């Protein structure tokens, strides 16, 4: 199986044909605009922020959004075979006889995948089924070697949970609301392989590395009503999964895939016909895809059209959804119990048989006791411990490792957490974002930053000098903050006389301001003078001291 398998391609899929969505411009215009620059283009391609259409339509239409989220389980081996799981390995290098569906091979359930699903179920407040079943779902596709997928259609491993997530209203971080979406079920199932269609040579290449990798399908109830809610819920789920370690949940690597079910209806009426939107590969696109689809449906219905129960694909370049011809027509999956797998039995402390080999059973209570703090708990702890704002706790947890970084700085500095958070969020985070770095890759360690903040806290340097030091630190040349301060002579001017002289020369040069100051004690003018002194000292003056001197001199 070392070579990519060659097969004929499926029939060509529909082009970017669009079914009645009046508002966006015709395709040629839209394509042209796509090149005009992001912000402008996006306004044309997307329904815009929810508030725009919300005002227009909310009175008459209620959007309903539910999600099906496929999560790749973080495990060394596949769900039913011993093949390794690894992203971007050479094609067909991780394929066991079972994965290639060689006749006579049988599935053997991977315990780690079961534990990951139990962990996830518990974290999402699900009830865990002590007995769950596996089923076969049949369909022919080149990257599904057995002709069926093993899944849990009848009795999944976890049911009836909930996921709480927060989002800010109208993009204001200070106005956060917490919402809850119900989790219908979590089921264990196999991933499929990957098909690569080579249109030029009219062939399909099949890579089975992914075939049989363990997935958890998390199905939500249709409890959301816009793209932002869906995106916030998925973001929270991502964090939970990463905290648990049950999945790396990186959307760009396909470890987390979201299909959105969208419909609209009038208040008080039954739900409308829903469409399923696929091919969404980032949280940002999820919000866009859902909002686009809501708006498309509303406009379709407003114009007297109907919504088809169909699968649509999100085109991230065009920012719209288009029908997928591949998935047209009702499939009958001919579900059947998987006869080669006995029922999956889980135990708890009470039901655990005494003489059972503990390596061979999964104990729900044992897993529950070892669950790590979930993001919501961590956030609450951060707010309580350090007195930071709730929205800051969100930012801290949204970046992998940032909360730990923050806590490490706190441990090593006398500066108050409320002040530290500013440096973390404004300086560190924006630098990392600008350079597309992760917290782990930061050239400035928490130790160095704490060192710098200590200099500031001890009033050895001013905060503007601290910023200059930080600029140097980013270069990652291994210098300590103190050394940079020395080299650049950024220490605060401790000599009162020297400072008084500098203040005097600034006053002398700004006679107009000084007159105004004397007349009206204008705060604005005073600040300007302080700024000028700072500039003159290249940030080496203590603003409090400068203010005192200036006030004294001006009142003389």
């Amino acid at each position: 199986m070392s070579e990519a398998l060659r097969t004929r391609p499926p029939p060509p899929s529909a082009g970017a044909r669009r079914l009645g969505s009046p508002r966006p411009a015709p395709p040629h215009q839209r394509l042209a605009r796509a090149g005009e620059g992001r912000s402008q283009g996006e306004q044309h391609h997307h329904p815009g922020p929810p508030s725009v259409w919300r005002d227009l339509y909310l009175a008459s239409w209620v959007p309903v959004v539910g999600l099906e989220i496929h999560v790749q389980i973080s495990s060394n081996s596949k769900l039913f075979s011993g093949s390794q799981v690894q992203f971007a390995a050479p094609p067909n290098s991780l394929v066991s006889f079972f994965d290639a569906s060689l006749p006579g091979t049988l599935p053997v359930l991977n315990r780690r995948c079961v534990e990951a699903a139990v962990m996830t179920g518990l974290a999402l407040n699900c009830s865990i089924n002590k007995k769950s079943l596996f089923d076969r779902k049949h369909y022919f596709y080149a990257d599904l070697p057995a002709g069926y997928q093993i899944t849990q259609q009848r009795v999944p491993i976890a049911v009836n949970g909930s996921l709480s997530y927060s989002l800010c209203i109208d993009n204001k971080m200070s106005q956060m609301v917490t919402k809850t979406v119900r989790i219908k079920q979590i089921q264990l199932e196999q991933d499929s392989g990957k098909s690569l269609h080579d249109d030029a040579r009219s062939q399909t290449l099949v890579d089975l590395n992914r075939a049989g990798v363990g997935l958890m399908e998390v199905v939500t109830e249709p409890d959301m009503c816009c793209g932002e809610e869906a995106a916030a819920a998925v973001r929270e789920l991502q964090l939970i999964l990463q905290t648990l370690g049950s999945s790396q949940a990186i959307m760009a690597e396909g470890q987390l895939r979201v299909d959105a079910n969208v419909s609209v209806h009038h208040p008080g009426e039954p739900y409308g016909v829903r469409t399923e939107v696929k091919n969404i590969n980032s949280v940002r696109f999820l919000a866009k895809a859902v909002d686009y689809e809501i708006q498309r449906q509303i406009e379709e219905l407003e114009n007297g059209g109907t919504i088809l129960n169909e699968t649509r694909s999100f085109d991230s370049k065009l920012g719209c959804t288009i029908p997928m011809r591949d998935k047209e027509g009702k499939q009958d999956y001919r579900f059947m119990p998987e006869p080669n797998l006995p029922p999956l039995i889980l135990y708890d402390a009470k039901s655990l048989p005494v003489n059972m080999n503990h390596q061979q059973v999964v104990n729900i209570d044992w897993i529950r006791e070892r669950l790590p703090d979930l993001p919501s708990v961590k956030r609450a702890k951060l707010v309580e411990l350090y007195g930071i704002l709730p929205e800051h706790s969100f930012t801290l947890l949204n970046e992998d490792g940032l909360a730990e970084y923050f806590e490490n700085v706190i441990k090593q500095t006398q500066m108050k957490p409320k002040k530290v958070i500013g440096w973390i969020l404004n300086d560190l985070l924006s630098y990392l974002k600008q350079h597309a770095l992760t917290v782990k890759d930061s050239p400035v360690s928490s130790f160095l930053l704490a060192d710098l903040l200590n200099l500031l806290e001890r009033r050895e340097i001013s905060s503007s000098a601290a910023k200059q030091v930080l600029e140097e630190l980013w270069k990652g040349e291994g210098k300590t903050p103190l050394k940079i301060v020395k080299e650049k002579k950024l220490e605060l001017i401790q000599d009162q006389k020297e400072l008084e002289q500098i203040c005097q020369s600034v006053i002398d040069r700004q006679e107009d301001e000084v007159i105004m100051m004397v007349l009206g004690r204008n705060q604005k003018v005073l600040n300007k003078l302080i700024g000028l002194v700072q500039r003159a000292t290249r940030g080496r003056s203590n603003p409090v001291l400068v203010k005192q001197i200036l006030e004294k001199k001006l009142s003389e």
Partner: protein
Amino acid sequence: MTEKGNFHRWGQPLGVLDGIPIAVKDNFNTAGIETTCASNMLKGYISPYNATVVQKLLDQGAVLLGKTNLDEFAMGSGSTDGIFGPVRNPWSYSRQYKEKTPPKSSSENEESDWVITGGSSGGSAAAVSSFTCFVALGSDTGGSTRNPAAHCGVVGLKPTYGLISRHGLIPLVNSMDVPGILTRCVDDAAVVLGSLAGHDPKDATTIQDTFKPFELPNLIDVRKLCIGIPKEYHAPGLSSEILALWSKAADLFKDAGAKVIEVSLPHTRYSIVCYHVLCTAEVASNMARFDGLEYGHRADMNKSTESMYAATRREGFNDVVRGRILSGNYFLLKQNYENYFIKAQKVRRLIANDFVKVFGSGVDILLTPTTLSDAVPYMEFIKEDNRTRSAQDDILTQAANMAGLPAISIPTALSKRGLPVGLQFIGHSFQEKQLLTVAKWFEKQVKFPMIQLEEVKRHDCSVFQHQKSVSFL
């Protein structure tokens, strides 16, 4: 081979089957050796791995002589529906048969007189029956080991579901398939069972408990036994000859002091219909993997993936397989699932419960016929289609598969036509030792005659007398 050689140089046998010639039904994977299922779909397919049972036999030192013929994908009861042609029953060429069935007229007719082996493990039964090997592996889903064993005059054991690994057995019906053991005598079957039974980490449906190989006692007391005679096995079409043999066998036990009682398995008559639904549904599913992409036959058709699938499966499967796939998919359709599949599963449970009740009432072993009649001539057999034949021929055997119970067919006597007739014993789950012990006692009583092959007789029959296992009388 070198490893084997070393062992032998040290004067140690590799295992209990060291040097014993065996044959394996061609639906078990054998590494490096073609595994075809007698189907165009897998013609030329060379498996990269050994089925667990094959590996276990080789580990014990068994010598694989070859793969044996079958009905395509084990779907049939005659071993007549494979791409390599039908299997001929060695008894067709026995003195016993020839004497009782004088050739009609010309030599051409004589050629058409040969009888089928039964199936689908006909090749394996024929191999053991003709002294080609001592042991052959078959598979048993609805009777595929016991039926040809009965027709070929050999012992055919279907162990309890879950006792022997199915890993590497190309499935017919996963929930009923069991590797079957064909031998010349019950003792041999016990030895082979000891080599094969036990948990396999590659088959999640095998039992966790360790299996202790056993030897069968030579002195067997049947006085404490309770033998059940299920009245429903007096099925329409049961030949009077076999009926008579069956009651003679019951008398044998009675005379030896066993308690023999009539019992009822009331749901038996629904078994074959129910089996049809469950079997075809699993077949439809199991056959889905044969799409021409990863292995096996691929049609020369490149209009689209779908048309390639269709052509591949049309060319690769015979009518029987395609027919079962079609009905299976029909039963699994959303609109039919409840009415067919779910109902069949419920009936299956009722059938299994029948056995539980009977065994719970104190019955140790059930005694039934294995087949309705002796083997029919090929020309007669093919007058009926595979579906009808399978329904008739599996009728006495497949309930044991539905319930997962161990069952064994023991050659009992020759029919008026000089052909073997077998009777079946069905035991409690995982009580193979008791089942085989009773079977061995019975085997001793009936003194089933040895096949006398005409061609062979002219050479030296005594060689074969010697080779045949000790318990043969």
